[in-house]
């Protein structure tokens, strides 16, 4: 019999002993926070290569941080997208709407109207400003915190709420966990819930678009934590091999539930720098700077549309709230982090910029916030007429068996008959079958 290793080796004389490094975040609950170690370069200081450049010319930008909005609330440098005031106000309106929506839905979950919700507080720019830089029919393969994309694309709030409540108005027939939206009409792919699976799918969609000589590109979003999945590696490999017209947005919000970004490799390098090993163009952008996010996404979109190939963008941001309604971040990180985050709040930065331009003021902001809150409130009431989770107004029972296959096979027919019998026993006289 072969003998396996037995306990700790005794070491071989003067051989050095090995030690395992287990990453540990800088701050835990109660710790005072000082983010002085995060390098925040001056806004406008980053060079902007031509969209048609070689991927390797973006190397410096993978370790830098593209910033446009300075401490003076003005736009600076070559990445300034020079958006007009109307566009900026539209962006701000989407920000306000997402924030109002998140507040209301979070509260709804606490009130027992649904099982689950996820806010995107602090990360609004990474979806809204990015989406605004894409064409409305560019295909989006989101992760779970990109409600801003739907709002920027004008997806009706009532559809979102119906989905969150899994009620009889839910277009997804109450099959998906809340916030796992899908809207083909808005070129928004069905959200999985399994992580990073959407990344090779986005690349495949982009390849298909190229195969067909289409003009639409694809964009995907993935958290920094999920870049550790093999799918992300596959996505980067296929993207570079076929020069696919795709944008890989990595949202580095520092936290994957309770695991800080160090568990995805952030102690050693940046996520943008992942691009270099694959030969992808890479950009690292201040994810709380709406203008910088817009500019980076636009750069990547223009590049992809011109057959220049894929771009990986790291959006450096901060998850200001818990991972979801099921999470309590006070158990693993310092509450001070949010206050001390050196890149500020994306909504406030845009408000201040528009104010600085003389195109906005506190009064208008207050009115906008109120208007959004009232709209969300009204739509929520409307959606509640379709029911809330667990209160009967769901889709008919037979829908449980539909769409597993295009046609119902015999074994599902038999199981549906069983469910129908059970329904008559469990809820006699109620609950529509079909």
């Amino acid at each position: 019999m072969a003998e396996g290793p037995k306990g700790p080796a005794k070491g071989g004389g003067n051989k050095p002993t090995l030690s395992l490094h287990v990453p540990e975040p800088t701050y835990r609950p109660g710790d005072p926070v000082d983010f002085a170690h995060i390098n925040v370069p001056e806004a406008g200081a980053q060079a902007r290569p031509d969209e048609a450049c070689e991927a390797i010319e973006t190397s410096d930008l993978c370790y830098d941080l593209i910033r446009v909005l300075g401490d003076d609330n003005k736009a600076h440098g070559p990445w300034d997208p020079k958006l007009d005031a109307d566009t900026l106000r539209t962006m701000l309106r989407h920000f306000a709407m997402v924030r109002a929506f998140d507040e209301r839905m979070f509260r709804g979950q606490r009130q027992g109207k649904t099982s689950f919700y996820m806010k995107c507080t602090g990360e609004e720019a990474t979806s809204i400003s990015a989406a605004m830089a894409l064409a409305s029919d560019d295909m989006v393969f989101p992760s779970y915190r990109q409600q801003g994309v739907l709002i920027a694309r004008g997806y009706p709030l009532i559809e979102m709420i119906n989905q969150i409540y899994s009620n009889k108005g839910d277009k997804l027939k109450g099959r998906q966990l809340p916030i796992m939206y899908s809207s083909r009409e808005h070129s928004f792919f069905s959200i999985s819930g399994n992580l990073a699976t959407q990344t090779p799918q986005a690349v495949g969609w982009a390849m298909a678009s190229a195969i067909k000589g289409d003009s639409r590109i694809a964009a995907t979003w993935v958290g920094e934590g999920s870049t550790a999945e093999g799918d992300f590696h596959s996505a980067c490999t296929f993207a570079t091999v076929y020069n696919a017209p795709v944008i890989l947005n990595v949202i580095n919000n520092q936290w994957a539930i309770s695991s800080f970004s160090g568990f995805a490799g952030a102690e050693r390098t940046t996520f943008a720098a992942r691009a270099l090993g694959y030969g992808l163009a890479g950009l690292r952008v201040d994810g709380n700077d709406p203008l910088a996010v817009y500019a980076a996404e636009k750069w990547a979109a223009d590049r992809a549309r011109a057959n220049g190939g894929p771009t990986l963008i790291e959006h450096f941001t901060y998850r200001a709230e818990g991972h979801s309604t099921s999470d309590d971040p006070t158990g693993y990180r310092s509450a001070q982090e949010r206050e001390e985050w050196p890149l500020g709040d994306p909504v406030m930065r845009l408000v201040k910029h528009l104010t600085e331009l003389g195109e906005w003021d506190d009064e208008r902001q207050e009115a906008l916030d109120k208007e959004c809150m009232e709209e969300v409130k009204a739509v929520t009431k409307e959606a509640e007429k379709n029911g809330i989770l667990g209160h009967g107004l769901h889709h008919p029972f037979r829908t449980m068996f539909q769409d597993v296959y295009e046609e119902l096979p015999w074994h599902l027919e038999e199981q549906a008959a069983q469910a129908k019998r059970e329904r008559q026993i469990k809820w006699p006289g109620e609950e529509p079958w079909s």
Partner: protein
Amino acid sequence: MSTKTKDNAPAEVGSERRLNMIEAINEALDIKMSEDPDVIIMGEDVGYFGGVFRATAGLQEKHGKTRVFDTPISECGIIGVAVGMGAYGLRPVPEIQFADYIYPGLDQLISEAARLRYRSATEYIAPLTVRSPFGGGIFGGQTHSQSPEAIFAHVAGLKTVIPATPYDAKGLLISCIEDNDPVIFFEPKRIYNGPFTGYYDKPVEPWKKHRDSVVPEGHYKIPLGKARVVTEGDALTILAYGTMVHVAEAVCAAKGVEAEILDLRTIVPLDIEAIEASVEKTGRCLIVHEATRTSGFGAELSALVTERCFYHLEAPVERVTGFDTPYPHSLEWAYFPGPVRIGEALDKILEA
């Protein structure tokens, strides 16, 4: 339409056109690519080279390299990319070089392709046909011999199809490609070139001597979920698919057993009516598959037959399967569920 390649020229015998299984698969792919511009093929070595088993030979030259192309060695990527292509509106036919290599793509198959129609309430579908050679008997060792069909049969939303003849391979593959659900198409590689009967010490006859190698030209379909009666008989029912159809047939012939052999062709959806009708007639049922035994698809078949035909049974349902070990290289023929194991089971079930 005939696909002529330097490696695989169709064999003409008399007035009937005969193809081996590779040629039949190649022809099905060629027909679908010619008919439907949304059909694309990708996989490791499938492009210029035409696949390690030559199933895609000549297709890149004929249909262009943006429709038939090589991929990185990444099954996760191949399936993931195919799901995205399906969402776009293409009809991808990815090849996984060996079924043993499919596992890195399982999340994309199980969590994504299989559930996309359901979770998006039909907004998106994944009309993929994943072709993959499977099964042993070729001295492939433990990483080129596995039969993982039960894993896929367990997944709601996937269909699993396994042809046993050139005629079926072509007609079933065309059905799979036209199907809007994701399909796993397992090709029994031991019978690519001839209907191996399990008598490993005897030469294998080429397909051109077999009745089911007569393959009509052009488009035809064999519906998914319809079993084929290989031989009619009253002594017992044998449920099999892939290579084991031929092994079971040969053993019954050698022993003079008049079995009713059903080639299931597709295990999901399953032709339960054909199974019930046959077992009710014969009262005895033997299930044969090459895959490992525990939780193999035979367990499902055995349960179904017992649940649905119990009062017609005159003997316990028997299973002949591979052993619950990895597929051993040097002991391949000790592992393979061949004539001896099947013969013993036949004796047992017929004596009961």
